């Protein structure tokens, strides 16, 4: 069936592969709020409130599982087109196959770059789902299922979703926009993922550790120092990877993805008519 459609016509913007319906708005908003707490609770928790640093990451991981499941169910409500599912599968495979290549080498993390460009071309809902499926496929391949997985899925899903919501631009401006977003996303992801494990990994007796109930400034200060000491270099590697990949391969990839979107003609309505004699 590959030879079915041949077209080189440049179209303004291909249709999103998965529609983000207006009715999904509340669920997505609520998910964002819950995610905010799940990641940022060490800064916001009041003195005397829930502060079990061992249990909290697990509890919020469980909450995020439910949240991610609900958002995904909401987005796929009414079914996802087979073309979109196949493309999600293939692109997740690319992400999952790329991931071990860079793992452990100076933060070279190639997942986000595919995710950002795919989210940009195929729309926010596709980006969100792709973020989830990529990380999930990767975890299944490498045996990496654990409490960190919901955090990673949630964070990368948002990277994909926001990539789909970036303002419209063309040509060099678009590539520059995506590259800038790549830097921001690279750092933000590292910042959030490290934050999710910070209360858990660092001994409370250390002066870089989370102090339950302490004022925001103290914990933020301590976390920034911890982050700078442990993962800033790593995240810089990730940000640089994103920028370099997007600048070098981004234009060609955007063109390839858009071409694929045109050929797939997502949700194009078939037409029927009376016999022409």
């Amino acid at each position, binding site marked *: *069936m590959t*030879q*079915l*459609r*041949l*077209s*080189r*016509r440049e179209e303004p913007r291909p249709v999103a592969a998965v529609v983000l319906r207006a009715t999904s708005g509340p669920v997505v908003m609520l998910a964002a709020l819950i995610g905010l707490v799940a990641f940022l609770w060490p800064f916001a928790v009041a003195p005397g409130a829930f502060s079990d640093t061992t249990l909290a990451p697990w509890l919020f991981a469980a909450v995020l599982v439910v949240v991610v499941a609900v958002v995904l169910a909401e987005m796929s409500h009414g079914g996802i087109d*087979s*073309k979109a599912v196949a493309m999600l599968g293939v692109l997740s495979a690319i992400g999952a196959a790329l991931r071990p290549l860079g793992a452990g080498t100076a933060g070279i993390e190639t997942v986000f770059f595919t995710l950002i460009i795919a989210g940009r071309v195929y729309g926010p809902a596709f980006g969100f789902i792709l973020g989830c499926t990529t990380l999930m496929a990767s975890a299944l391949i490498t045996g990496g299922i654990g409490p960190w997985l919901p955090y990673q899925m949630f964070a990368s899903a948002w990277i994909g979703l926001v990539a789909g919501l970036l303002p419209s631009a063309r040509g060099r401006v678009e590539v520059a926009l995506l590259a800038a977003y790549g830097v921001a996303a690279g750092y933000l992801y590292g910042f959030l993922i490290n934050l999710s494990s910070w209360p858990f990994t660092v001994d409370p007796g250390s002066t870089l550790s989370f102090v339950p109930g302490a004022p925001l400034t103290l914990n933020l200060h301590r976390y920034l120092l911890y982050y700078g000491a442990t993962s800033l270099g790593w995240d810089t590697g990730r940000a640089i990877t994103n920028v370099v990949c997007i600048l070098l391969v981004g234009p*060609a990839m955007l*063109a*390839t993805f858009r*071409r694929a979107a045109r050929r797939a*003609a997502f949700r*194009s*309505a*078939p*037409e*029927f*008519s*009376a*016999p*022409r*004699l």
Partner: protein
Amino acid sequence: MIRFDHMTVTYSEQSSPVLRDVDLLVEEGELVLVVGPTGAGKSTFLGTVNGLVPHFSGGTLAGRVTVGGRDTRAHRPRDLADLVGVVSQDPLAGFVTDTVEEELAYGMEQLAIAPDVMRKRVEETLDLLGVADLRDRPLHQLSGGQQQRVAIGAVLTTHPRVLVLDEPTSALDPTAAEEVLATITRLVHDLGVTVLLAEHRLERVVQYADRIVEIHRNGRVTYGPPALVLATSAVAPPVVELGRLAGWEPLPLSIRDARRSARHLRQRLPAEGREPVRGRTGGTPVLRARNVVVRYGPTVAVGGVEVELDAGRVTALMGRNGSGKSSLLWALQGSGPRHAGTVTVDAPGRPGGLDPARLPAGEARRLVGLIPQTPTDLLYLDTVAAECRQADLEAAGAGDDRSSGVPALQLLEELAPGIDPLAHPRDLSEGQRLALVLAIQLTAAPPVLLLDEPTRGLDYRSKEHLGAVLGRLAAGGRSVVVATHDVEFAAKVADRVIVMAAGDLVADGSAVDILTASPAYAPQVAKILAPAHYLTVDQVATALRSTSP
């Protein structure tokens, strides 16, 4: 069973219809062969049967298609999944799961068939296709023939009454293709399944067909019994062409029928065919390979091959899958591994010759050019013109005067006239893509050109064209090697044939000698006219012209 009621299909970006006013009825239990040149709409025609066209592809379908009483306007492909099974060219691309058993069950899971029924049907299908011992194997590790049989099995488990196969054997070697075709004919005869089959290499299937649909370039179709349609069709297997040439009535479709009719012709012809394309006398050797060994772990792919390639000749390298053809080509080019032995290629100003494997890649391709099995692996830009410009840069890169100096775009125009330079390389037909990669490789002007399975997916006309191109290249003094399964193609183009088996050369000689010596490698014409040594219909025509007063 299937009723096409004045069907016309038009894709949204195109002004003229792909198929025009198709009006025919396919009866239950028939095997219908769909023929036509590449790009004429065979895939579109097959796609209309289960509604992929237009539900999946977009576009407009005028008229009506009904399958087993269900109208495709109201039934999407998924709603016809229990009735129509579809098998594509590349089975691997259509697999959803990764093991044989799960793949066989996938379709039934979608139809919500009860688990115990599923279990029973999977077992039946494993037996029916003879793949029971493969049940736990990962799909991507199976051979091409096994994969295709699993793909057929995977659609059979839902017990469809119609089977649609779009060139199921195009990626297979002759043995695997025979297995698959034997499976298909058995299904028709044992289960009474209605089969629609598109196939390039008609010589393999035409004898099994009950009816033929021929699709013309203008989108019209002809439908009728094989002998009737083939008498005038644009594409025909050699047996039919010979029959047309000799004016046999009724037109024979199998070797057996043709041999009966050919008694008279055999007497008229001189015993040796004069070889119009084989007038080129062997030149001097330009490439010498001594004791080439290629291993993959414990497996020996090429075991000490000695070969010399002469300038100005086309050599066909034949042998079954896994016999080491590709490995040998890659080793000769220097990019692939070579664990022992030497390869030397004549180079101007270098009396001893050069070993391409010791040269940088950019230099090696000036000595030996290779077109890999998937030529698209070499393409990464978004227009034909950009690819050609890049090729010119690459050719000029080394900066000496040994390159051809001919721009790639011009070479391409000579090889395949009329390609839009602004087209995306992936939108070209198989033949055009091959021509593009050939043009790119020819910018380096290598004296030795190697092609790995270039005829995959090409129709008769494209093969004819490729054969002519290769002949011209050889006539220009190049040494051309074609690894191929396609006996008819080898018969048309080759001066010399080398047969490999298990990493060794088992036969090496002139095309006539090798191709008429064994039935496995004999083209249809040779089989019909044996013991006379003829390989192609053209040779017979020339001989007839020279003998007739």
